[in-house]
C-alpha cells in the first residue's frame, strides 16, 4: 500500500496534467486569448439580403478579423435584415465605413467585409453603418446572366 504522501503526489500530477490539457484546448485549439480580454463595441448594419450569414461569422477589415457577428434580426418596418457586429475595441473605424457581405472562396462561409471611408469622426458603440452591400445570391446572378443572354439572342436574330 502506498503512503498518503505518494498518493497525493500522483493525484497532484494527474490533476495538473488534466488542467494542462484543458488549458491547451482553450488556448491553442480554441484560441481563447484572441478576443476574451479586450473590450468590444457594437455596430449595426442593415442589408436587403444577408444570404447565408450566420451569428459568429467573422467581420474582417482588409482581411484581418476585427470582430464577430453577434446578432441577426429582421426589421418589420423596412423589411431589411439588421446585423449587429461586436468589434474589438482595439480597432477604430471612420463614421462612413461601408459593410459588404462576402464569401471566402467559392463555397466557403460568408463574412462581413468592412472598408474604411474618409470621415474624421469614429464609429461609436451602437452606431449604424450607412452604406451596405448585400450578399450575392447565386440564383439572382444566374437569372441575370440568362436574361442578358436571351436579350443578346433576340438582337442577333436575322430580321
Amino acid at each position, binding site marked *: 500500500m502506498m503512503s498518503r504522501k505518494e498518493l497525493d503526489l500522483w493525484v497532484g*500530477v*494527474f*490533476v495538473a496534467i*488534466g488542467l494542462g*490539457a484543458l488549458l491547451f*484546448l482553450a488556448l*491553442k*485549439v*480554441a*484560441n481563447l486569448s484572441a478576443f476574451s480580454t479586450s473590450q468590444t463595441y457594437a455596430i449595426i448594419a442593415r442589408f436587403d439580403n444577408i444570404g447565408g450569414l450566420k451569428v459568429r461569422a467573422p467581420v474582417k477589415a482588409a482581411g484581418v478579423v476585427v470582430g464577430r457577428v453577434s446578432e441577426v434580426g429582421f426589421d418589420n418596418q423596412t423589411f431589411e435584415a439588421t446585423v449587429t457586429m461586436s468589434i474589438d475595441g482595439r480597432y477604430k473605424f471612420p463614421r462612413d465605413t461601408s459593410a459588404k457581405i462576402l464569401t471566402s472562396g467559392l463555397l466557403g462561409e460568408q463574412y462581413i467585409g468592412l472598408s474604411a471611408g474618409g470621415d474624421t469622426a469614429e464609429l461609436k458603440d451602437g452606431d449604424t453603418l450607412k452604406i451596405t452591400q448585400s450578399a450575392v445570391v447565386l440564383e439572382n446572378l444566374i437569372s441575370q446572366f440568362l436574361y442578358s443572354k436571351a436579350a443578346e439572342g433576340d438582337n442577333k436574330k436575322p430580321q
Partner: protein
Amino acid sequence: MRKRITELLRDLGARVTGWIWRLGFASRFFAVMLLQSGTSFRRFHLTIREIYFAGVLSLVIILVSGLFVGMVLGLQGYDTLVRYGSAEALGVLVALSLLRELGPVVAALLFASRAGSAITAEIGLMKATEQLAAMEMMAVDPIARVVAPRFWAGVLSMPLLAALFSAMGIFGGYLVGVRMIGVDAGSFWSQMQSTVDFHEDVLNGVIKSAVFGVAITWIAVLEGYDAPPTAEGVSRATTRTVVTSSLAVLALDFVMTALMFRGV
C-alpha cells in the same frame, strides 16, 4: 395456451415493476449519497485515494487510446478531405470531432470499463465479505465512508480524462497530418483556431464528460452496493455496470448533442 399467455403477461408485469422499483431505489440511493458526501470533502484524503484508483490508473489507457484515435482520424480525414482539395481543414475535422464527440464519449466508455467495473467489484466484494456490515456495526456509515468518495472521485476525474483524451488525439492528428503526410502546419493550427469556439466546443465537451462521470460512477456504486453477496452476484453486477453505463453514456450523448448543437 391460456396459461402460457397469463404467465407471459405476469412475467412482463414483474419485469416492469422490478425496473421501476430499481429506478426508485437508484434515485433514493443518489439522494442519500449526495446528503452523505460531506465526509468525502471534510476528509479529502479518502477522495484523493479514489482519484488515484479511478483517474491516475486510467491515464495510460486514456492517453494511448487518445493518441491512436487522433492518428486514425488524421489518416482517414486526410484521405477524404484531399479529394475535395481541402486537406488544410484536417485540423478542424480532428479537433471538432474529438472535442464534441469522441473525446467525451470514448473516454467515458474506457472509464466505464476500466474504473466503473473496478468500483463495482470492490464495493460488491466488500459487501460479500461483510465489511460494509462491519462498518455499520461500528457506527460508520458505509455510504459516507465507501460510496460517496468513490462517486466524487469519478465525477472529478472524468472531465480531466476526457480533456487529456482530446488533447492527445489532437496531438496524434498533428503527428499524422503534419509530420507524416505533410499538411501545412500553419493552416492546420490556424483553421482549427478560427473554427473551434471555446464555449461552443470546449466547454460543451467538458459539460458532457462531467455528466458522463456522474452517470458512470452512479451506476457503478449502485450496482456494487446492490450486488447479491455471492461470487456470481458480484461478477454479474460488474458486467451490468459496464453494459448499463455504456448504454447510458451513448443515450445521454445523443440527448446532449441534440440540445447543444441544434441549428449551429
